[in-house]
């Protein structure tokens, strides 16, 4: 054997190809919904400055949904790839290791307490706070050269704790409807969001993306362990700070606006890793684009499926993602046994 499977250098078409796919899915997302919308005509009317029911529908409903699909998907894909590089483990994913559920708890706290009504930024801030605490906790629990087992166990503990806290909030809900509202929100969806949501979280996510994308060199160096990375001039303290803060900002803001949408950060890097020559730095932009494409596609699917009430996006991603997670776990079981 002279050629090992899945470690060929990154083909030049990968990033442009993924970019095109995202653009295509974005426009499809604008065009698809319960009401038929002649996309080219409506866009042309919009550029002429006309205002009609169609342009209103496009601007107020379809555009925020498509934009959030793009932003949330990219955040989850990128954060997944970054966490995996940071913990050097393909199973580290914001949902699996409890970052999403902690962020969800933070956001639930913000809107359940009513703070987010008077101070809208409290919602993403609650999400970011929860995400930040969970990544920090994971880092402390699992340690530096963490094994798969210790990461999963730390994730189980963090997930259990944040689920308990969220249940506590549900327990104190004044009526069943308030509890139901929270439960449905946590399931994860992009439906019925407005441009205000986009404006609220987009700058925060972009800041998170910048921090994560700037960690590529450090993640590459970490392939050979912490001492070797430090000997290559990587400041590990600074790298950890960038990754923890970047993940908290991206995932916290994403969860605050869309609820807990799991497994995007697991599936996307897993599919793309062989295409980027297994290199953590190159996986980052590819996973951001791939995450955006996957979430836009999944959100199209829930709108096109003829189910009675629309399926929640988080339910679909979990149904697809959980089997892949099990498959990965099965493949890594030898390492787990050590």
């Amino acid at each position, binding site marked *: *054997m002279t050629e090992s499977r899945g470690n060929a250098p990154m083909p030049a078409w990968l990033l442009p190809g993924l970019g095109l796919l995202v653009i295509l899915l974005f426009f499809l997302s604008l065009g698809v919904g319960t009401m038929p919308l002649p996309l080219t005509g409506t866009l042309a009317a919009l550029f002429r400055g006309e205002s009609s029911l169609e342009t209103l529908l496009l601007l107020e409903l379809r555009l925020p949904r498509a934009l959030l699909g793009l932003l949330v998907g990219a955040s989850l894909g990128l954060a997944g790839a970054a966490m995996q590089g940071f913990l050097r483990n393909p199973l580290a994913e914001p949902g699996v290791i409890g970052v999403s559920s902690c962020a969800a708890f933070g956001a639930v706290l913000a809107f359940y307490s009513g703070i987010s009504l008077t101070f809208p930024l409290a919602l993403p801030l609650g999400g970011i706070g929860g995400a930040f605490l969970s990544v920090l906790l994971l880092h402390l629990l699992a340690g530096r050269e963490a094994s798969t087992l210790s990461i999963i166990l730390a994730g189980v503990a963090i997930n259990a704790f944040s689920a308990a806290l969220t249940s506590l909030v549900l327990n104190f809900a004044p009526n069943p409807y308030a509890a139901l509202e929270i439960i449905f929100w946590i399931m994860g969806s992009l439906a019925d969001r407005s441009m205000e949501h986009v404006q609220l979280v987009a700058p925060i996510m972009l800041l998170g993306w910048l921090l994560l994308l700037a960690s*590529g060199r450090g993640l*590459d160096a970490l392939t*050979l362990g912490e*001492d070797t990375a430090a*000997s*290559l001039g990587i*400041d590990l303290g600074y790298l950890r700070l960038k990754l923890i803060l970047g993940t908290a900002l991206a995932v916290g803001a994403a969860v605050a606006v869309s609820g807990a949408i799991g497994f995007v950060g697991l599936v996307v890097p897993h599919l793309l890793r062989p295409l980027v020559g297994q290199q953590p730095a190159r996986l980052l932009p590819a996973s951001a684009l791939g995450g955006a494409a996957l979430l836009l596609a999944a959100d199209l699917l829930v709108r096109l499926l003829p189910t009675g009430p629309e399926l929640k996006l988080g339910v679909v991603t979990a149904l697809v993602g959980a089997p892949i997670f099990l498959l990965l776990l099965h493949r890594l079981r030898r390492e787990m046994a050590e």
Partner: protein
Amino acid sequence: MMRITAEAVSVEIGGKPLLDGVDLEVRPGELTGLIGPNGAGKTTLLRVLGALRPPGSGRVLYDGKTIARRERPALARRLAYLAQGGEAHWPLRVERLVALGRLPHQGPLGRASAEDQSAVERALQRSGVEHLRARTLATLSGGERMQVLLARALAVEAEALLADEPVAALDPHHQLRVMDLLRAEARAGKAVVVVLHDLSLAARFCDQLALLHRGRLLAQGRPESVLGDRELASAYGVRVLRGMERGEPFLLPWERLEAGERP
């Protein structure tokens, strides 16, 4: 050309001393061997010399100067470190793995220059692993793996190379191969430090030895002066057999000494 000087270096963890007042000078053009029993502080000393951990007290000088945190990236171009029992967490192909040694020379965007490319080629060639370039570490034997990781360290093209037990898990052929390579690096003007367990390899290949025992430097200097019966008895608690082959010494640990027999 880089000279590394450790001055009265001490390291403690939780009140337990790992290194205690170690003075050591690593000179360019020489192969320096760090030897001593398990837990003597060899890896700790190597990490301190490589600026991977700060000494609790004392200091480490590079060409007479200490290194501040903001100067650490610049030091990475001048000093390469080969960690013990290295593994790769992702199945990168060998040439990409070796290219990681060029990170200190690349800007934040990490574009590889033509110089980076040729440095990687030189490293693959010197370490004799050109034919493995498209493989992954996991598919290689232990010996090949160490040669690849050594190539990664060589690709830095630094003035100093610190290697932690690079021959520990290798068969005799690969042991000699790696030691030959390290000696050649030293002869080319580099300052090379290697942590060793094999006393014959230490005696034969190193220009200078430092014998550590419980965090203290028990002996330091030319191999023949460090590897005396008395030194080996008190550090390792063994008696050795000695011999010569074509003017080069070899040592064979022969029997354990009881507690009362250790000096």
